């Protein structure tokens, strides 16, 4: 471990973000400084791996904080265990590549200092979130992550959609956060401490779980649903595509949405055997249903970034499901393994999409693209790798991690969830291939795209190539990864590939891949056929996202507005009238007090 790495790894980006106004005095320094900070942070994160791979006890340096003698003493510190160090490396590693890519993507943007500031703050607070050893810090960093995502989604604040998307992300995740906060308060009331270790100790000391502590995981799950954009709070993530593509890459691959999965994994590690059965079932079904529904939405999206957004929600659903399934066999590592695969291929996909969007001056509608593969060969080939990894085609990493999820579902005998997972895998490959075809193959379908010149500078190519290579490599590291996480899969056996789950994966690939190939490559039947009749109705339903958004707007936005307007009629704005009503109310209150008191 490099000296003070557990603290420096998150303090460094946070302090660097505060120094951004100083660095901005010189344009060269302004752009290079955050990238250097990103890579130094990644080096710190990497250096912590050897310290935890040896197994427990894990380093847990603590300091006293919020000290009121004799009343409150909150001990805070950082907890280094395989889970937190792994998340650190994902955030810092992917984050630094995205920062490097931003050099080209954000060059010449207005407000670039603000961009670097929030990116560094984002990375710093996400690392702080995963290394915190208590719920209080976890919550503070959790909110900081939410703030940064709000500011970055609305980075182009002159665009009204971007502003709205930022506010929507902030408000929708806030709904989950309220429940999360309630859960933390319940923990404090029942254990008198925020620390994970104290909660774990309390759980082990009780023979029968106190009622309050068994409701806590559900409250935390609601927080995770908001943050990780699971159904029914998934509506903010597709809209969040209004931000710069690098921001989307960071939110999807490394920070923000992964925070919910991390929280669930952490809760799982704390509760272990004490975890309520219903909570695990809830995790499985929230994950499975989200994965399936959002994959169907991804089939009809025409905005290249929205396709990727739906696929993120769907893959996060897989992770949630894996957490719920793995519980009985100690499978936390499966969801983390899929998280690693997803972080790599999703960063790759977003950055590759970013090259196209950047060159086409912000055009994101895939119907207008096509035939771009000659202009951007590196982007094309790396994006194909990304889509194959996302779809779960061997030998890319998505195949191995998805396969483990199927195996876990088989093993626990949860065939309904397994069915949804396999169908989702088929849909995933189908919309991935559709995206590749519409973007890169066929004819250029609009005049504006024909006129544009695509350029992919090396600063963009290098992160793409690194991530594509990682897509190849990390799939084969399952065994080492299981060993690193300190988890034996079951019966003392380490990581193994089941023939049945592999054949299920292959079936899913064929079921998803062949129709996509026929419809888009062979055009038999051509995709236009699906816009009519019964298919057309289905397509409208899917592209409206099952009317979730419309429903929320009608009830919570317009409904609330109407209710407020109704109350407004009782406010005539005439002072005498208002005061008379106050007097009347006071008299009534006094009368009631006299009568009843």
């Amino acid at each position, binding site marked *: 471990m490099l000296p003070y790495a557990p603290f420096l790894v998150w303090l460094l980006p946070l302090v660097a973000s505060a120094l951004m106004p100083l660095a901005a005095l010189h344009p060269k320094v302004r752009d290079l400084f955050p990238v250097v900070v990103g890579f130094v942070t990644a080096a710190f994160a990497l250096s912590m791996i050897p310290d935890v791979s040896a197994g427990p006890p894990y380093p847990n340096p603590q300091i006293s904080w919020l000290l009121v003698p004799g009343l409150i003493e909150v001990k805070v510190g950082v907890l280094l265990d395989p889970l937190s160090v792994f998340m650190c490396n994902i955030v810092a590693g992917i984050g630094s590549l995205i920062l490097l890519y931003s050099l080209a993507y954000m060059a010449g943007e207005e407000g670039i200092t603000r961009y670097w500031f929030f990116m560094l703050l984002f990375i710093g607070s996400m690392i702080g979130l995963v290394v915190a050893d208590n719920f209080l810090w976890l919550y503070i960093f959790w909110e900081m992550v939410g703030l940064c995502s709000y500011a970055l989604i609305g980075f182009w604040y002159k665009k009204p959609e971007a502003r709205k998307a930022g506010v929507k992300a902030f408000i929708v995740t806030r709904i989950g956060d309220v429940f999360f906060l309630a859960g933390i308060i319940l923990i404090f009331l029942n254990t008198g401490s925020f620390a994970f270790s104290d909660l774990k100790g309390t759980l082990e000391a009780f023979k029968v779980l106190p009622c309050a502590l068994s409701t806590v995981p559900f409250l935390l799950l609601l927080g995770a649903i908001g943050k990780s954009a699971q159904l029914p709070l998934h509506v903010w993530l597709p809209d969040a595509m209004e931000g710069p593509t690098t921001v989307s890459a960071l939110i999807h691959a490394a920070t923000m949405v992964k925070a919910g999965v991390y929280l669930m994994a952490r809760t799982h590690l704390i509760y272990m055997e004490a975890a309520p059965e219903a909570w695990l079932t809830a995790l499985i079904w929230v994950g499975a249903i989200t994965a399936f529904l959002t994959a169907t939405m991804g089939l009809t999206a025409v905005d290249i970034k929205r396709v990727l957004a739906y696929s993120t929600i769907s893959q996060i659903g897989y992770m949630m499901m894996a957490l719920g399934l793995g519980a009985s066999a100690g499978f936390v590592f499966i969801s983390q393994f899929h998280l690693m695969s997803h972080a790599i291929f999703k960063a790759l996909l977003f950055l590759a999409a970013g090259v196209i969007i950047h060159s086409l001056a912000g055009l994101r509608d895939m119907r207008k693209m096509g035939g771009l593969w000659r202009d951007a060969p590196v982007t094309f080939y790396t994006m194909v790798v990304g889509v194959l990894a996302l779809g779960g085609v061997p030998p890319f990493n998505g195949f191995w991690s998805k396969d483990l999820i199927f195996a876990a579902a088989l093993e626990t005998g949860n065939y309904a969830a397994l069915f949804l997972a396999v169908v989702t895998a088929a849909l995933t490959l189908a919309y991935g291939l559709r995206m590749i075809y519409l973007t890169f193959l066929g004819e250029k379908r609009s005049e504006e795209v024909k006129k544009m010149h695509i350029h992919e500078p090396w600063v963009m190519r290098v992160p793409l190539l690194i991530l594509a290579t990682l897509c190849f490599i990390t799939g084969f590291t399952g065994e080492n990864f299981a060993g690193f996480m300190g988890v034996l899969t079951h019966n003392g056996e380490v990581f193994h590939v089941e023939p049945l789950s592999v054949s299920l994966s292959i079936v899913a690939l064929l079921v998803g891949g062949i129709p996509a190939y026929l419809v888009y490559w062979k055009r038999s039947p051509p995709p236009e056929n699906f816009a009519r009749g019964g298919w057309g109705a289905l397509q409208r339903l899917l592209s409206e996202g099952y009317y979730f958004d419309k429903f929320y707007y009608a009830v919570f936005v317009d409904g609330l507005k109407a209710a407020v307007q109704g109350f407004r009629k009782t406010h*005539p704005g005439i002072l*005498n009238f208002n005061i008379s009503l106050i007097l009347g109310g006071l008299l009534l209150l006094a009368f009631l007090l006299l009568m009843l008191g």
Partner: protein
Amino acid sequence: MDVASIGLTGGMLLIVLGLYCLATKRNMIRLVLAAEIMTNGAIVLLVTFAATPLGMVNPAIVAIAILAIGIGGCVAAIGLAIALQAFRHYKTLDVRELKRLRW
């Protein structure tokens, strides 16, 4: 009648007087005066409650009362300033004109 009940009754009367004035008058200057009367009623109540049975007065409360008087003066100044600006704008002191400020 002892001092305490005189204080309480007087304070209550001042508040009710202010409220009555606020509820019936339309001249903005009168309304500012009414608000001041209510403030003073509240201060009288505060000082009355500060008195202990032994005839002592809690000095901290008196300090707060003096502070409240000062703040009441500021409020009156701002209220009169608003009334003055409203008069310049609407050429009348009728408070109903301010209804337009409601959004």
